């Protein structure tokens, strides 16, 4: 993986984040302006090439690659983790899930993997005699990974619960090579 590829994806993700953050701040209230809501809706689904969705997916894939490739493990073990991630996603209903849920499943699986890696690093570090600073650093990393994973699970569960009676949440957008483009509104 080249650094440029990583930079392009992270820059795009940053751009998308800024656009969304601005519109979300305006619309997250009980009676948002219809104009702002329409702008947000357009940004979400009316983009013909659906580049924003791809940006989010790419950022997730990039994070997945970085987490696995930079882990201190053998190539064989990394392959096992990749396979385990795929199985986990499948178990969480990735295939056939609406687009939004797919994003959340990808995120949950990735956060689970990261938490496991941090826990492994934490227990390896704690076996040795370490400085207070290093201990605090690992505690902080572990706590952040646990928080990230819990939040991902909560969001997935919430969206699943809310989307039961809300067809408007059933975004289903074709991936490259697919045919279906069905964005429920």
């Amino acid at each position, binding site marked *: 993986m080249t650094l440029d590829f990583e930079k392009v994806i992270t820059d795009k993700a940053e751009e998308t984040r800024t656009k969304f953050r601005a519109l979300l701040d305006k619309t997250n209230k009980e*009676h948002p302006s219809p104009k702002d809501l329409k702008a947000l809706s357009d940004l979400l689904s009316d983009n013909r090439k659906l580049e924003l969705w791809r940006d989010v997916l790419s950022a997730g894939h990039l994070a997945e690659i970085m987490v696995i490739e930079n882990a201190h493990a053998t190539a064989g073990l990394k392959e096992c983790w990749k396979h385990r991630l795929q199985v986990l996603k499948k178990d969480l209903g990735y295939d056939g899930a609406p687009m939004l849920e797919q994003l959340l499943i990808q995120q949950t699986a990735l956060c689970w993997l990261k938490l496991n890696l941090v826990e492994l690093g934490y227990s390896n570090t704690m076996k040795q005699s370490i400085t207070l600073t290093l201990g605090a650093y690992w505690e902080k990393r572990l706590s952040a990974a646990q928080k990230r994973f819990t939040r991902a699970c909560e969001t997935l569960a919430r969206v699943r619960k809310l989307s039961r009676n809300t067809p408007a949440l059933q*975004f289903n957008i074709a991936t490259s090579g697919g045919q279906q483009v069905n964005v429920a509104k």
Partner: protein
Amino acid sequence: MGWERRGNHEYYYRKARDGSRVKSWYVGRGEMAHMISKFEGSSGEVGKLLRLKKSIEAQESDRIEATLDRAVELVQLFTEASLLTAGFHTHRRQWRRKRK
């Protein structure tokens, strides 16, 4: 670590702090002591390199976690945007459907 002159000869001592005091241990003199002092001088360099390597590894870990956090935040934003356009809003950090 240090060389100390006692009379006409130099002797090599190993120093270590023990609480508020610094203790000296005699190592030796002559060629053998010179060799030991060279090795011990290099182990400081090795320690420095190890610390540098650890700091580079920590920076790399931080970079990966920053990328992961960005990806997670982006998915959260998309989720919020989807919920908002589907007619939900937050009230005291809880998602509610808009009243009709």
